[in-house]
């Protein structure tokens, strides 16, 4: 197997002066740094809680991929929407969900963003245009299409960002969605977060392709692009072009952002260090880490010092610790609450919700 890090096409271009990046203030850039650091600290400390058995089920960590969620979400306006798969904590925090509601959800508490009913893979915040958090690989790709359809139907000037992993590109639903997106001219941007592995199977062993995965868009007469995910400027510059294409021309795009995850597919991935070498992981951490690279960049630009960076890390650690405390101290959902949030009409106590039997427990 070839080492994906060795193949990575290093970008020669400097995207810091592209139109969408030119106007960034020093504070904007620092905020991106803070946002990425918050995600990483949240994930690291969530891992610790998982290892203490305070979190159930799966935990798919986003560590290593932070620049993707932060860079793309930073481009969202009021009418732009986002939906992703099960590795969703980064996007959730990037859209502005609080660490408290996210950590409480991991803890299965009633104060969680989904009242403890969704768990790690199913975070939602419709008020922040964040529509999940979806557990079935590729299952969210038609939903993202539908968000774009809804925007166009209602004449709203936005687009949908629909994230998926490199493993999801081989699901049938995704290809149906791509065809429909192009055919119906839907304002959706599909973003493959290519971390090189679909669970334990490398890209080379799971996908048939010529040059890159996004190239498959050509089969659907759709625009595509390849993005170096370790450069936040590049993520923003190229994603912005696709979002504008969606918003202004109602044309979809397929983007492939090359990135890397330091941990396993999930924390339960016992083979996380077997299908790739420890040296590969170390190489990414040393040379390609998006947070370290952004930190270096901001120091070079003179907008932040190393001391500032450490202070932001410390602040994120404190915020996460407080979120853990909040989650610990929150109540679990009650058995009675199991039957809530199943049917809208029942929850709203409407006439329809009171007609006939909806539940069959005895």
């Amino acid at each position, binding site marked *: 197997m070839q080492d994906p890090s060795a193949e990575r096409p290093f970008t020669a271009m400097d995207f810091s002066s592209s139109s969408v990046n030119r106007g960034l203030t020093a504070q904007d850039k620092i905020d991106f740094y803070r946002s990425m650091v918050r995600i990483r600290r949240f994930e690291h400390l969530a891992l610790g809680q998982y290892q203490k058995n305070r979190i159930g089920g799966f935990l798919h960590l986003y560590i290593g991929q932070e620049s993707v969620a932060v860079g793309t979400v930073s481009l969202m306006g009021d009418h732009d929407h986002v939906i992703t798969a099960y590795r969703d904590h980064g996007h959730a925090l990037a859209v502005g969900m609080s660490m408290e509601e996210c950590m409480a959800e991991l803890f299965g508490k009633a104060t969680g963003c989904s009242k403890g009913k969704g768990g790690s893979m199913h975070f939602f915040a419709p008020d922040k245009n964040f529509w999940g958090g979806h557990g*079935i690989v590729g299952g969210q790709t*038609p939903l993202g*299409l539908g968000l774009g359809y*809804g925007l166009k139907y209602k004449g709203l000037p936005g687009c*949908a960002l629909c994230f998926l992993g490199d493993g999801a590109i081989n699901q049938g*639903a995704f290809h*149906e969605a791509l065809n429909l997106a192009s055919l119906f001219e839907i304002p959706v941007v599909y973003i493959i977060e290519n971390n090189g592995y679909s669970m334990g199977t490398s890209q080379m062993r799971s996908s048939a392709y010529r040059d890159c995965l996004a190239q498959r868009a050509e089969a659907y007469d759709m625009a595509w692009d390849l993005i170096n995910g370790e450069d936040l400027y590049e993520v923003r510059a190229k994603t912005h072009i696709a979002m504008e294409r969606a918003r202004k021309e109602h044309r979809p795009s397929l983007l492939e952002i090359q990135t890397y995850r330091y941990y396993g597919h999930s924390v339960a991935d016992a083979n996380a260090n077997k299908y790739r070498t420890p040296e590969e992981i170390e190489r990414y951490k040393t040379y390609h880490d998006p947070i370290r690279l952004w930190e270096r960049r901001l120091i070079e630009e003179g907008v932040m010092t190393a001391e500032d960076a450490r202070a932001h890390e410390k602040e994120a650690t404190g915020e996460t610790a407080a979120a853990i405390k909040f989650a610990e101290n929150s109540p679990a959902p009650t058995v009675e609450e199991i039957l809530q949030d199943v049917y*809208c009409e029942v929850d709203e106590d409407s006439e329809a919700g009171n*007609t006939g039997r909806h539940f069959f427990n005895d």
Partner: protein
Amino acid sequence: MRELLYRHALCEALDEELARDENVVIMGEEVAQYNGAYKVTEGLWDKWGNKRVVDTPISEAGFIGMGVGASMLGVRPVMELMFWSFHSVAFDQLVNNAGCMRYMAGGLINVPIVVRGPANGGTNVGATHSHCPEGLFAAFPGLKVCAPATPADAKGLMKAAIRDNDPVFVMENTKLYGTLGPVPDPAEGEHLVPLGRADIKREGSDITLIAHGRSVLHALEAAGTLARDHSISAEVVDLRSIRPLDQDAIIDSVVKTNRAVLVDESKPFNGVSSQIAALIQEHAFDHLDAPVKRVCSIDAPSIYSPHIEDEQLPNARRVVEQVLTMA
């Protein structure tokens, strides 16, 4: 009262709801320019145009998932499956995305979609096109399922389904599309049939026949035969809605007649009638003079042969025979 074909009653419901709510969109394969594979949507594209009546490619997972996603932003898609049998290629979208999303979001989302189409055997199209998945989908909390037997119920339930704020799966029947029946005139006001309310299609005192969809017609025919030839007074309860379910109507009738035969085109294992039988034994056990019996489709994949397919399905003769074993 004026009479309409079942398919025209459905079409009238769709037309009225398109007029009432600008967010209602009809989607599916061949629903627009072709006028519907079974002509349920005939004339709607001519009247409402491309925005409201949308032909989709043959991509059930894709367009149903698209409808679910659009519904989260307030669009109210009414999506046709040319056959409900095609649910299998869209199962993840129907169950996980339409059925579970509200729950996993802690109630922050609702999915006001309708998925509709025929779900029946009896047309010699073999096992792949003859599934009856109403019991299958009713088994998923978060989903609602109904199966109208008459043109009036088809119209009324369709309108209620479109207005419902939860996902509703309407199971129609190709063998019923051409049946005629009275449907109230729109000039006399809205005709709505609420989900969760059964209808006594024939009153009786000796035995209760419980059915939904086309099986209601078999039950009614059997009740006529039983009255005429055997002096048995059979009551026919049309469930109309599977989930929510009118349990009171079922139990009240069984308490009155003390016997029940469930007529259900599902296969017997975990069909709709399995759940009805469980409810009857639990809530009317002391009123039963005989075990609850069922007339389901014979328990094999649906046979093609036109010579015997009707014998695999419930029919009036099989219902009569079953009742006579209990008299």
